[in-house]
C-alpha cells in the first residue's frame, strides 16, 4: 500500500507534466462550447423550422447522439475519422471534432427551449416590420434566447469541462492524463488521482458559483 501524499506534487512537477494538460482541457472546453453552441443553434433552428426535411434529420442526429455514451462517441470518431479522411489524426484533434459534434446535440436542446421561450408575437412583429426570417432570428429571437438560456448554457459548459476527462479513452493529453503521468513518474498514481479530484472540484465549484451569481443578476433584470 502506497501512502497517499499530495505534497510530492510541487509546482515544478505540476508545471512540468500537468499544466499542458490543463491548458488542453480548458481549450477543449472553450472550443467545444463555441462550436457546440453554433451548430446546436443551427440544429435547433432546423428543428423549429416546421419543414419536415429539415426537422427530421436534425431530430435523428440530436436524439441519436443523446442516446450514445460519450465515451463510445469519442472512441467512434477516433476509429472512423481516419477512414473518412484517409489519414490518421491525433487524439487531441479527434477529441475536438468529437466534442463539437457531440455537444451540439445537447446545446441544440437548450437553444430549442430558448427559442421557444420567446413569444411568437415577437416573430410576427418582426415580420410585420418587413424583416426576413434571417433578420428576425439574428436581431430579435436569438439575442433574447441566448440571454434567457445563458445560465443553462454555462451549466452545460461546466458539465462539458468535466466530460473532457473522458478523452482518457483515446489517450489524449488532458489534465487527468497529465496528472496521471506525473503520478507514474513519482510512483504516486493514487495521489495523482486525488489531486485531480481536488483540482477539478475547485475549478467546477468556482465556475458554478459564478454561474449562480450571474443567474441572480439576470433574473432580477428580466
Amino acid at each position, binding site marked *: 500500500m502506497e501512502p497517499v501524499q499530495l505534497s510530492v506534487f510541487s509546482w515544478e512537477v505540476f508545471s512540468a507534466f500537468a499544466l499542458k494538460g490543463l491548458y488542453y482541457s480548458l481549450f477543449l472546453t472553450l472550443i467545444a462550447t463555441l462550436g457546440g453552441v453554433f451548430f446546436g443553434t443551427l440544429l435547433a433552428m432546423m428543428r423549429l423550422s416546421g419543414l419536415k426535411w429539415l426537422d427530421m434529420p436534425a431530430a435523428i442526429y440530436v436524439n441519436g447522439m443523446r442516446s450514445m*455514451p460519450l465515451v*463510445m462517441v469519442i472512441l467512434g470518431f477516433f476509429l472512423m475519422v481516419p477512414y473518412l479522411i484517409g489519414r490518421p489524426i491525433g487524439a487531441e484533434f479527434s477529441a475536438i471534432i468529437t466534442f463539437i459534434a457531440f455537444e451540439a446535440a445537447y446545446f441544440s436542446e437548450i437553444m430549442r427551449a430558448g427559442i421557444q421561450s420567446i413569444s411568437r408575437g415577437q416573430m410576427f412583429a418582426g415580420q410585420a416590420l418587413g424583416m426576413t426570417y434571417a433578420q428576425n432570428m439574428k436581431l430579435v429571437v436569438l439575442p433574447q434566447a441566448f440571454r434567457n438560456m445563458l445560465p443553462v448554457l454555462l451549466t452545460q459548459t461546466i458539465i462539458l469541462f468535466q466530460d473532457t*476527462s473522458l478523452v482518457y479513452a483515446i489517450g489524449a493529453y488532458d489534465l487527468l492524463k497529465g496528472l496521471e503521468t506525473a503520478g507514474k513518474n513519482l510512483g504516486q498514481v493514487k495521489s495523482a488521482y486525488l489531486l485531480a479530484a481536488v483540482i477539478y472540484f475547485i475549478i467546477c465549484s468556482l465556475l458554478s458559483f459564478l454561474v449562480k451569481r450571474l443567474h441572480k443578476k439576470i433574473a432580477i433584470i428580466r
Partner: protein
Amino acid sequence: MSNWDWQVFCRDTVTGDQVAGCFATGRDQTYLQWMLQAWGMTVTVSLSALLVALIVGSIIGVLRTLPDSPKLVAFGNAWVEFFRNIPLLVQIFIWNYVVPDVIPMTANLPPMVLIILGLGFFTSARVAEQLRSGIQALPRGQRYAGMALGLTTPQYYRFVLLPMAYRIIMPPLTSESMNIFKNSAVAFAVSIPELTQFYLQAGEETGKQIEIYLGVLAAYVLTAMIVNRVMVFIEGRLRVPGMVAAGGMGGH
C-alpha cells in the same frame, strides 16, 4: 469500408473459427456470446448503481429540505456539491484505487462493487437535487397541513410530501435512468468487462473494429430506447395531472 464482415460475431473467441448458428456450446464462446455477456454486465452495473442512487439520493434529498436542521441541510448540500463537481471518471479511479486503501472496510470488495458504489453515489447527487426541487415545488401548505394534523416529521414526509414529490420528478428521473446506462461506459477505464471494454478488447483481437463498434453502439442505443419506454410507461401510470417538476436540462 466496403467489405463488411459481420460474420466476425460468429467467430469462436479462442480458435477464430466460424461457428454455425453463432452460438458455441460447452466452454467455447463466440464474440456474439461475449458481447451479450458484456451487455449483461452493463445492465447489472447500471441497475445496481441506479438502486444505490435512488436510495442514497432520496436520503440526501430529504435531508436538504428538513426544517430546523441547518446542519443536516448543510451536509446534504455539501454532498451534492462534492459529487457533482468531480468528473465521474476521476471518481471511478478514486473508488477503484484509493478507497480500498483508505477505508479498510472496502479493502476486499470486488472492483465491480466499487464501481457500482461510485456510479451510484455520483448519480445520487443528481437524484438528491431533483428530489429537493420536487419537494420544494409542492405548496408549503402541504407541509403545514401535515404538521397541523400532528404528524411527526418522518410521518408527513412519508404520507404527505414524498408521495407527491416522487410523482412529479418522474420526468427528470427518466433521463437520469438513461444517463446511468450511458455513464456506466466509463467502467471500461478500470477494466470492468462491460460493453465498452468488450469493444476495446474484441476490436483489438479480431481487427474488425468497425463491425464490433457498430454492434456495441446498437446495444447501447437499444438499451437507451428500452429504458426510455419502461420509464415513460411508469411515468404515465404515476403522472399527477397538472403538476410537472422543473426538470434539469443538459447533463449527460
